[in-house]
């Protein structure tokens, strides 16, 4: 086994194991930490694919996003009660079965989709070759020519989310009235 392959299998194992732990842990704090670990693992996988910019972005944005979840968990959950609410009850059982079904469907779908992609050559994709700088420049070129409308729409979308988040946090009532 080459070093490349070893690294890939190691990282894949870490990523999948921490991803599984997110849903298997009963304590939401540990789940959030495992999610952060999953994000770091995915970022490391990007590094092995020479997608350095995406790896950095993965760390900055996604790991930061998990931080939001973390503070929310600390803020909202009275942990002892909520651990039981997550693990007991008919409704939770139904949700569990539904999510298993959804997950199985996703896995089957992913396998079915990727089988047809396996044979295709991907080397003509400009984003796949080269080191960090070229890929980032290629990203910039595509972003500011082909996808410029999507880029501007993203700005508006983020603005809407910001307004929504502030509105939610300011609404009166609930358990955490300021």
């Amino acid at each position, binding site marked *: 086994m080459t070093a490349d392959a070893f690294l890939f299998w190691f990282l894949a194992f870490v990523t999948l194991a921490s991803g599984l732990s997110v849903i298997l842990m009963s304590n939401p704090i540990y789940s959030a930490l495992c999610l952060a670990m999953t994000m770091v693992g995915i970022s490391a996988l990007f590094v092995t694919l020479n997608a350095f910019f995406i790896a*950095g972005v993965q*760390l900055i944005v996604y790991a930061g996003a998990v931080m939001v979840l973390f503070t929310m968990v600390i803020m909202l959950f009275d942990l002892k009660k909520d651990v039981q609410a997550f693990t007991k009850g008919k409704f939770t059982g139904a949700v569990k079965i539904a999510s298993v079904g959804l997950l199985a469907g996703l896995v089957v779908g992913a396998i079915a989709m990727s089988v047809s992609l396996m044979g295709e050559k991907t080397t003509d994709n400009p984003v796949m070759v080269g080191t960090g700088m070229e890929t980032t420049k290629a990203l910039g070129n595509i972003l500011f020519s082909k996808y410029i409308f999507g880029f501007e729409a993203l700005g508006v979308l983020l603005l809407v989310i910001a307004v929504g988040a502030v509105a939610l946090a300011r609404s009166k009532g609930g358990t955490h009235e300021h």
Partner: protein
Amino acid sequence: MGMGKDIFEITVNGLKLVVIFLMMVQMVPILVWLERRGSAFIQDRLGPNRVGPLGLMQLLADAVKFLTKENFVPDTAKPFLYYAAPVFALIPGAVAFSAIPMSSPIQVGTFEMFGSTWGPYTFLVQGYEIGVGIVFILGVSSLAAYTLLMAGWGSGNKYTLMGALRASAQTISYELALGLSIVGVIMLYGTFNLTEMTLAQQGPLSFTFLGNNVTASWLPNWGIFYQPLAAILFFSAAFAESNRLPFDLAEGESELVGGFHTEYGGFKFNMFFIGEYGHMMIASGLMVLFFFGGYTIPYVSVAELNEWAASVTSTAGKASALVALIHFLAFNVKFAFFMWVFIWVRWTLPRFRYDQLMDLGWKTMLPWALANTIITAFVIYIASL
């Protein structure tokens, strides 16, 4: 990139990683000594001066004392998180510090050893070179906020939890200003790569504006003359990122005792300390790289230095080693200056209030960083017409 193609190169590169990690760890006691002597100097007292010459052995005594401390976990703590947090506090610092180029590469020619010829090598004086240096370092050091939360929540104490939340809210708020202030720098150099940035800053100040070549031979070609606002914003945000005074709200003694590390003692506490100093080192290193010419010597270009080194040494390998040594010293002089500024500011400025801190980050530094981005883009566009 990578570890190398034969056993000699891999061994040297591996040793280099260990040395750079030890450099980061070993700089901490020296900085602690400097901080204690420096604070004493600023406050007109003596500081540690009993153990060894100038109190230098104090560091060793501290380390021994840290090691012999009782090692216990509070009853309410989560043992795994309680132990893992200080260890994880080391990792972002170590990984990001290894990516900082500290000198020009050393060339080694072919030579005979153990009965075989070993081909020419190029060794970088940094742990590894990464194409998107800045983005990677920012991403890795943003992970440090997790160690705060792990420590704060894992200790099972309300002071630690509040300290951790405060510290992480502060860290992420200033990360915005930090990330935005370097957009202008990236635009200026047109690269993420730290070595390329350094090499862009050699020689005297010269640039093209509206088709005219402007040269100012009395100034070095440093980034600070192009991006003064970005330099101020970056350095201030770096203070907040590393939880140093005047932004060390995480450990407001009068409100939160020790902040997120209230429950820690002995070497576990020391590891948080190493993490904090690691952040300071990365901030100083990046400050030198972005705005003060990296490892280059002011006014002198790398080519001129190479020429001089070739004239005084016999082989190309020796010349590159000499150049690397000079560059390394130049880098460390600049680096040490910024470390001293960190210490200096800590013992000069009082602490902010929490609302002042958040106002400064969101309402002052973020708009100024945006203004810097817009102005830089505008000037670069106009200058190219």
